[in-house]
C-alpha cells in the first residue's frame, strides 16, 4: 500500500483515536485544531507537527496546502464548525477527497450538501451494529475481528499483475479456497472501479489490473499474493 498522508481536522473525541490508529498503520498524519486545549493535548500525545489554526479563515486553510494530502478528514467536535469547515474546504479545493463525521441525521444531510465525499454517521453505524448484534451475533463479532485484524484473518486488496495466470479466467471457474483464501469481490478497472461482490452471481472475466478483495489468514494472503504473479497455475499450493 502506498504511503498516504492525511490532513486531520480536529483532535477531540474522534480525532485523537483516529490519529492514533492511522499512525500505527504507517500513515503520515497532519493534525489541525482550532481549540487550544485539544491542540495542547495533541502535542502532549506526541504529534509534534500539530497546528493550531483558525479554520474559519480561508487564508489559513490555503496555507495548509490541502491539495498535497490524499484525504482531508473533518472530525471537529463542534458540529457547526465541522460543517462550515467541510463547506470551506470544498469551495477552495474542488478535487480533494473529503471525509466527515456527523452526529445526527440532519448534520449528515448538511455535510453531504456541503460537499463531503463520504459522511460517517455516528448514530447510524452504532444503531446498525446493535441491529446486527441482535440478529446475527456471531457474524457481527467475527466481521469485526476481520476488520480490526484481531485474529489474523483479514481482508486484503490484491491487484492482478501483468501476465498473471488469473488473467482471462472466469470467476465461476476459480476456487481460491484451495489456496486458503476466499474471494469476496472484485474491483473492475473496466467498469469504472465498481466493486462487485462475488455473491452477486455475475460470472466475471478477470483481467490484469483488476483488484481482488480477498479474505484470509495473513500468511496465506502473503503466499497468494506472490503466487498470483506466476504465469502458470501453480500445481498445488
Amino acid at each position, binding site marked *: 500500500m502506498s504511503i498516504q498522508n492525511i490532513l486531520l481536522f480536529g483532535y477531540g473525541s474522534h480525532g485523537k483515536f483516529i490519529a492514533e490508529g492511522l499512525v500505527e498503520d504507517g500513515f503520515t498524519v497532519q493534525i489541525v485544531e482550532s481549540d487550544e486545549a485539544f491542540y495542547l493535548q495533541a502535542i502532549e500525545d506526541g504529534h509534534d507537527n500539530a497546528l493550531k489554526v483558525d479554520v474559519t479563515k480561508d487564508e489559513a486553510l490555503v496555507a495548509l496546502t490541502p491539495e498535497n494530502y490524499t484525504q482531508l478528514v473533518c472530525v471537529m467536535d463542534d458540529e457547526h464548525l465541522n460543517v462550515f469547515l467541510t463547506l470551506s474546504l470544498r469551495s477552495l479545493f474542488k478535487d480533494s477527497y473529503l471525509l466527515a463525521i456527523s452526529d445526527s441525521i440532519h448534520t449528515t444531510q448538511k455535510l453531504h450538501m456541503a460537499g463531503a465525499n463520504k459522511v460517517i454517521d455516528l448514530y447510524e453505524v452504532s444503531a446498525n451494529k446493535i441491529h446486527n448484534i441482535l440478529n446475527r451475533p456471531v457474524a457481527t463479532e467475527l466481521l469485526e475481528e476481520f476488520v480490526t485484524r484481531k485474529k489474523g484473518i483479514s481482508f486484503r486488496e490484491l491487484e492482478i499483475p501483468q501476465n498473471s495466470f488469473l488473467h482471462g479466467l472466469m470467476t465461476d471457474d476459480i476456487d481460491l479456497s484451495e489456496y486458503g483464501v476466499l474471494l469476496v469481490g472484485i474491483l473492475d478497472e473496466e467498469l469504472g472501479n465498481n466493486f462487485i461482490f462475488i455473491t*452477486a452471481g455475475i460470472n466475471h472475466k478477470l483481467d490484469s489490473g483488476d483488484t481482488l*478483495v480477498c479474505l484470509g489468514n495473513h500468511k496465506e494472503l502473503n503466499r497468494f499474493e506472490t503466487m498470483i504473479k506466476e504465469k502458470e497455475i501453480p500445481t498445488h499450493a
Partner: protein
Amino acid sequence: MNQILLSIALFLRASKRYKHTKSFIRDVLTNANNPYKKYVDIMIIFLIVTSVVILIYEVKNPVPEWLDVYDIYFVSFVFSIEYLLRLWVHNDLTELIAKEHKEAEFLQRDSNPTSMLKIGLVEKVRYMFTPTALIDLLAIFPAYRPLRVLRIFVLFRVLKLLRYTKSINQFMEVLSNKKFELLTLLFLLFFIVMTAGIAIYVLEERLNPNIGSLFDALYWALVTISTVGYGDISPVTPEGRSISILVIISGIAMISFATSVIVSAFSEKLSELKENRIIEEVNKSKSFLIVCGYGQMTKMFFRQYNNELENYIILENSLDRVEQARKDGYKAIHDDASRYDTLNKFNAEHAEITILCLTASDVENIYITLNAKSISSKINVIARANDSSMMSKFKHAGADHILMPNKVANNMIHTAITQPTMYKAIHAILTGKSMARMDEIRAYECEGIVDKSVKELAFKRTKLLFLGIQREGTFMFNPPKSEIIQKHDILLVMGREISLDYFKNLYEGEC
C-alpha cells in the same frame, strides 16, 4: 396434638415437591404472566358461559339430563376445586408454624403451633369474606332447579367472570380511586331520597291512593331523583309536586356530578390504562425488546427495521420524547427504566427479554443494566457507553454487549481512510443493504445440514460464499471440504438475502 401439628408442618416445609406444587398452582391462578394461566382462565370462562346459556335455555325448553348433570355436578365440582385451591394458596400455614417453632427454639420456650394455626386460619377466614371469595363460594352452589330462587346463584357465576376479565377489573380500579367522591354522592343520594320519601309519605299518604306505605314513598323518591319517572306513583297535592320539583332538580345535579367524577377518573387514568395495555401486549410474546430512551440512537435503530419490528416497547423518562415517539408511530410508554417496579412489570420469567440501554447518560445506562440484571440474570442487556472509562463498569454491572458509538464510528473512519475500497464492501456487509451480507446459519435450526460435509452443501448453487464454522467458541476459517457439520455449529456465510433464504429452504425440507 401440638407435636403432631409441628411435625406435619416441618415435614411439608421440607418437602420440595409440596413447595413446588404450591408455588406452581399459585402462579397459575394469580400470575397473569404465567403461560398456563390463559388456559385455566379460558376453561373457567367456558364453564360460566355454558351454565348461563343452560339457564336461559331451560326457561322455555326441557333440558336433557346429561346437561343437568354437567351443570349441577361438574361445573360445581370444578368451581369448588378452584375455590379450595385459592384458599389453600392464599397463605402458608406451614410457614407460620415453622417460623414460630424456630423462634420458640431460639428463645428456648415451648412452641405453640396451635396459636399460629389459629392466626393462619383467621387469615384464611378473612380471605373467605372478601367479595371475590364470596362470589366464588356462592357460584359453587348448583342451580337447583325445583327451587327457582336458587337459580339466582347462576348469576354469581356471571359475577365470577369479573375475576377473569381484565377490563372490568380496571374499571373497578379506576372507580376505587374516586371512592371518596362516589361515597359522598351516595350518601347525599341516600339523604335526599330519605327526606323526600318521608316528606311525601307524611304529606300524601292519605290523599294519594298509590302511596300505601313508606316503601312506596321511598320508591317514588328514587324513581324521581334518577329522572327515570315511571309515573306509576305521582304526587297529587301542590306540596307534593313542590317536593318533586326539588327532587328532580337535585337529581339532575347529582347525575351530572356522578358523570363528571367517573369521566375525570378515567381521563386521569387513561394514559396509564393505555400503557398497561401495551405492556400486556408485549408480555404475551415469547421474546421482545425493551428499548430505554428515545433519542438519536433509538431513532436510527428503528430505521434499520423499516417498521418491521413488532415485539418491542420503548421506555422513556421525558414526556416530550414519549409524545414524539408516539407521533413517529412507535409503542412508547412514559416510565423510568431504572426503577425496579418498571422493569418488574415485564415477564422476565417466561419470555426472552433483551434490553437496549440507549439513553445519552452513562450513569443512567449502568443503572438500568444493574436494575435489569437484578430482576433476572436471563435478561440480555446491550448497553451504550459514551466514555471508554465506563467499559469496565458496564462489564461489572453485567451488560452482555457494550457498544461505544464513538469507538464504532472511529473504527469506521479508520477503515474508510486506510482501506477505502474495502470500506465500501465492509459497509455493505455491515448494513446488509446490498448484494452481500454476512450472516450465520445455525445448524440446530436447519437440521438438514447436520452430519453433511462442507462439500455436500449447496453453497455454489445458492451463490453463497462459505466463510467458516464457529464451533464451541472458536472460528474455523475456510475448513477443508471434508469437514462434517455438527449440531451446534454456526456456519458463517456471505451472500444475498434471497440466497440465504433459498439455502435454508433447501435444507429445511430434509429435516
